């Protein structure tokens, strides 16, 4: 196990390195930040000054080299737009995004697994079919569209919830969190719901599929024959076996929730990383985009590592290094 983790960490560094190179190169191809950032009335002298100030007057490879040197000490560059360390700007907005992602995951797992379980155990009931049809709705409509519809319904028409923005925050271990208060939850509810809809549908469907497969297997019949109560059969035996692919998907989806938060945050004016990075992309604020990607990729790697470990723990047939059981 330790060797496995060590190897993963070594690979992680390689992955981060490649990611930074890809982003650097990619954004360089998109366009020249000076053209976007400098006031169009400015003359050449001003453009030249800006280029020097932002380090853009040097060849791109040299800029990358400077970035790498800084990265070893934790300095991921200074944002062109904000003039502050890029990492600081990202980390400042991270709690907001994580709040949404967390709430969305709770909603989608908390609602999705029970619904999927129900639909899988009673596949022929009308209510089950309704659940499945509803789940298709959840991922057929684009997030941005549903988001505005949610705002129109709950905020404009009914006036029950605020339309946009983040609620009041409190300081928790140095991070500003808004969802520990009722007021904060009111602001977070719609964007989290918007974000959760897609995953909710996926989890319902996957759970149901797994339940339908597993429910017919011998070990379930055996457990029933032994006289175990239904709740134990489902709660312990069935659930444990469907968790494996479910955990993979949840792991995957946690990452994509963060990626999709980009659109939801834009619509709900939620001041998180997603909104920041999309603005930065369109303004060619390269340091912020690079910092964001490194943070996100690192997060993905850690999530996948956790998932792999959980996988091995849940399924004795799986060995992490690929040897036969």
């Amino acid at each position, binding site marked *: 196990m330790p060797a496995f983790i060590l190897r993963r960490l070594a690979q992680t560094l390689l992955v981060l390195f490649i990611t930074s190179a890809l982003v650097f190169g990619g954004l360089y191809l*998109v*366009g*020249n*930040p000076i*053209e*976007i*950032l*400098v*006031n*169009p*009335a*400015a*003359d*050449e*002298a*001003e453009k030249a*000054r*800006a280029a020097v*100030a*932002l380090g853009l007057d040097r060849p791109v490879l040299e800029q990358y080299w400077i970035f790498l040197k800084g990265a070893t000490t934790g300095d991921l560059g*200074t944002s*062109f*737009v*904000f*003039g*502050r360390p890029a990492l600081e*700007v990202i980390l*400042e*907005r991270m709690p907001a995004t994580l709040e949404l992602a967390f709430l969305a995951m709770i909603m989608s797992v908390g609602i999705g697994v029970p619904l999927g379980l129900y639909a899988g155990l009673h596949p022929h009931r009308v209510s089950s079919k309704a659940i499945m049809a509803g789940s298709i709705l959840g991922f057929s409509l684009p997030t941005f569209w549903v988001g*505005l519809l949610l*705002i*129109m319904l709950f*905020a*404009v028409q009914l*006036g029950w919830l*605020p*339309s*946009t*923005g*983040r609620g009041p925050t409190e300081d928790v271990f140095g991070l500003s969190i808004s969802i520990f208060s009722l007021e904060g939850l009111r602001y977070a509810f719609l964007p989290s719901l918007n974000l959760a809809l897609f995953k909710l549908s996926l989890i319902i469907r996957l759970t149901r599929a797994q339940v339908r497969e597993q429910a017919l297997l011998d070990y379930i019949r055996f457990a029933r024959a032994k006289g175990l109560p239904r709740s134990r059969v489902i709660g312990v035996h069935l659930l444990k076996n469907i968790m494996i692919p479910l955990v993979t998907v949840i792991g995957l989806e946690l990452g994509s929730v963060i990626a999709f938060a980009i659109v939801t945050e*834009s*619509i*709900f*004016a939620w*001041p998180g990383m997603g*909104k*920041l990075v999309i*603005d930065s*992309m*369109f*303004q*060619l604020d390269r340091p912020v985009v690079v910092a964001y990607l490194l943070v996100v990729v690192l997060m993905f790697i850690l999530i996948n590592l956790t998932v792999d470990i959980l996988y091995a723990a849940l399924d004795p047939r799986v060995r992490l290094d690929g040897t036969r059981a």
Partner: protein
Amino acid sequence: MRPIIFVLLALASGSVSAQELSIALSTPITSLDPHFHNLSPNNGMSKHFFDPLVKQDEQQHLRPGLAESWRAVDDTTWEFKLRKGVKWHDGSDFSAEDVIATFKRVPNVPNSPSSLAIYTRPIKEAVATDKYTLRLRTERPYPLLPNDLSGVQILPKKVAETARTEDFNSGKAMIGTGPYKFVEYVSGDRVVMTVNDKYWGPRPAFAKVRYRMISNSAARVAALLAGDVRMIEGVPTSDIERLSKDARVTLASAVSNRIIYLHMDSGRERNSPFVTDLAGKPLEANPFRDPRVRKAISKMIDRDAIVSRIMEGQAKPAGQLLPETMSGTSKRLKPEKYDPDGAKKLLAEAGYPNGFGVTLHTPNNRYINDERVAQAVAQFLTRGGIVTKVDAMPSAVFFSRGSKLEFSLLLAGWGAETGENSSPLRSLLATFDATAGMGTSNRGRFSDAGVDALLSSALTTIDDTKRGLMLAAAVEKAVGELQGLVPLHYEVSTWAMRKGITYRARTDQYTFAFEVSPAK
């Protein structure tokens, strides 16, 4: 819950100023440092806390700010008489020293992506002849110095000499002379301010203001309708009709200083990159070199249809670079009439009786309805014989490519910060000269010696009337006669607010909380 609050508030109209005014902006600010980034939202926000020497009113006419009066002593010297008795937010007195220290700071802000140095560069020497008199000497005659200085917010000497950008963002350095004092700033989310009781100018109607940043336009309108904010800027054109019929909402609008126009490749002798013949093969000749082709394009476009259908009335057809009410404009140029037959004749005269093919490039996230305007233009051009394709891209890509002169026909816009005609003329139609700062956005590389001559003499003529006439002559030649670009329309800026408040709409598109007042 909300309706009850509104009833209570309406009843308590006597204590209007005690309420908090919440306004939603369309573009987030990037810093509170007034000299860090020469960006519209930043500049607008800084004017709440700080004042410049010269202010611009809602028509962008110059008005006294921290300077009560100014005059040109001679061609290269300006004298500014400063206002007495002005106090900084921390209680200390304002004087000429503060201005000099500010001017020293402006070109030296670290990491600035776009500094205000262009406004202070003409100043060779700044001298305080007494505590409230300032003499500024320029290298060459620079008639627009007061206009430029209206964009430079003044800081106290102590702050100007020691503050860093972070100090402004945290609030430590936010000591100004402006109508509001700093309370809170959460990056990307909100700015909160409270009224400055000692302000030298008219007292704002609202004691507390909360600005929120809501970039998505539909969400912004929803926030207004839901009552989460009392006022929004940048109302999308598609919602104007509905909002004007809504009893809860008032609208305020003004023709802005932003022109939307088409630039054509007048620079290349031949082989313009996206010009083809009708079969789609690249054309060797460059039709855009011929002013008749350019004029034909202008005649082919039904500006009224674009204004009514695409912009839903939120635009004014344009015949030159700035609305006629602004200084330096021509009283003779009118928007080109929709004349498809005349266009066809001109095209035939120029040697293209059957037209040709071209691609129109446009940004899709920069100007109001930019992509849709481009599509409408393409529709008109295609009907007129110039088969046009539209290629829309994010502005990050568009401006980079445009500056590399990769386009043959492009749509762009220009907002005149100085409020007068030399700004668009020199950036869009002057012959490109990087070191002199002329033609910096002249992506069609239009060039005419006569226009250049008129423009250069205008830029060094101190007398306002004479300068105005020269600029009018320049634009009449460049646009009216030679069609260096095809003006389409001026954008109209619209603000929407809940009933009970009004706003003096501005041509420079700024949203100022201190100009919001209760409706009579």
